[in-house]
């Protein structure tokens, strides 16, 4: 059943294959982001309640969605790594975690910067921000655990276990935080409504979202390649690669 996957499970093939994809991802993400962020900053309409501050939305929401999506992807990779002993899946966890953490940090800061004019305070223990904060902790845990091991393959396995434990807990944490928030917040703080999405807003949003997604793909590709090399450094094909590179640099 897994035979068709087999060529891609070969580190050398994946290394070169990812290398071919990277320029495409870069080009697509640059085009989409220039277009999307241009629309978001200059052409989309201001919100009748929030005015121009709504432009933060085009950063905050894609970043928040990606931060969750990347964690999910990491957990799927972790499951593959543990169940089918796929070493490439371990490499992709290592590559994904820092990217996910970065997007979580962006979602948090843009959320705070959006909250200040809306709620009058930088930080509010709002359900979405709180779960985002905990998500950041989970990411930092995976990264820290990954770095704590000397041996790359052990690091990958440990991070896989943690990522799976995290993904099982994530819905529980999210639900508990949401419940806790409604319990404590009551009606004292005016929660602002999610901006209802009109087409003028949806188009820049979706373009930005895909732009960021391709950016993620590109950065992931680069890190993934580096992780593959680091994990296969004792293989002959890496040796030839290194020697070749030295030659081209030397000339």
């Amino acid at each position, binding site marked *: 059943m897994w035979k068709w996957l087999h060529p891609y499970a070969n580190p050398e093939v994946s290394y070169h294959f990812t290398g071919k994809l990277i320029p495409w991802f870069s080009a697509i993400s640059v085009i989409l982001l220039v277009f999307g962020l241009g629309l978001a900053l200059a052409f989309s309409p201001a919100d009748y309640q929030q005015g121009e501050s709504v432009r933060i939305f085009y950063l905050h929401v894609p970043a928040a969605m990606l931060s969750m999506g990347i964690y999910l992807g990491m957990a799927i990779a972790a499951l593959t790594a543990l169940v089918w*002993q796929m070493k490439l899946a371990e490499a992709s966890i290592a590559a994904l975690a820092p990217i996910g953490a970065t997007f979580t940090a962006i979602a948090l800061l843009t959320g705070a910067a959006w909250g200040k004019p809306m709620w009058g305070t930088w930080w509010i223990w709002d359900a979405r921000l709180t779960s985002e904060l905990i998500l950041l902790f989970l990411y930092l845990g995976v990264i820290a655990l990954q770095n704590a091991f*000397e*041996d*790359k*393959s052990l690091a990958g396995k440990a991070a896989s276990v943690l990522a799976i434990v995290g993904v099982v807990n994530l819905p529980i944490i999210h639900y508990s935080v949401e419940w806790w928030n409604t319990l404590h917040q009551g009606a004292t703080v005016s929660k602002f409504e999610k901006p209802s999405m009109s087409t003028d807003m949806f188009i820049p949003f979706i373009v930005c979202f895909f732009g960021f997604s391709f950016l993620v793909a590109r950065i992931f590709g680069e890190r993934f390649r580096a992780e593959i090399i680091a994990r296969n*450094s*004792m*293989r*002959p094909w890496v*040796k030839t690669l290194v020697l070749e590179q030295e030659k081209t640099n030397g000339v």
Partner: protein
Amino acid sequence: MATQHSVLLAADKLTCIREDRLLFDQLSFDVNTGDIIQVEGANGTGKTSLLRILAGLSQPYDGKVLYKAENIHHCQEDYNSDLIFLGHLPGVKGEMTSEENLQFYLKLHGLDHSLAEQTLAEVNLFGFEDALASHLSAGQHRRIALARLWQSNSKIWILDEPFTAIDKAGVEKLEQLFLRHAKNGGAVILTTHQDLSIHSNDFKKIILEHQFI
């Protein structure tokens, strides 16, 4: 010997990589009943890693270990009940007496734990049964761990440096035990820096060398 030599354990194309170093590549061998196998090699060639992979404690980078033609990670309970592994660390608890320590392991393997006292006498620990292990020496800790060998009905013994901190008489006694175990259809895989004095047709060596890529 007239015993039929059936395969107890098979290493199938084992590859081991530790911290970017290739320790061994595509290593295959069989362990038959009646074998005594000494794994030899300089420091850092992967003797301990090989033994830990065979015991199922470590995962090889590639390849598998087969017990009764099945991957040991798929029949772990069966394999574990037919295995004794003694590593560098004796696994002896300082807070318990030597008898309690031995009894715990015997019970864990479903063996008769009332024989613990008698077994301790075999390894020269007579009179130390109710001494807390924290008051005993490193050699005595190792003897407590080795005492399990006298009671075990496991066929496969994997022993990492069993002679460390053991005196001459003890080493001789252990060698006799290994021979008896092999004759009874068991197998011993061990590492040691001492030369074994046993002469047996089934005494084999696996030599590990530094690998270069």
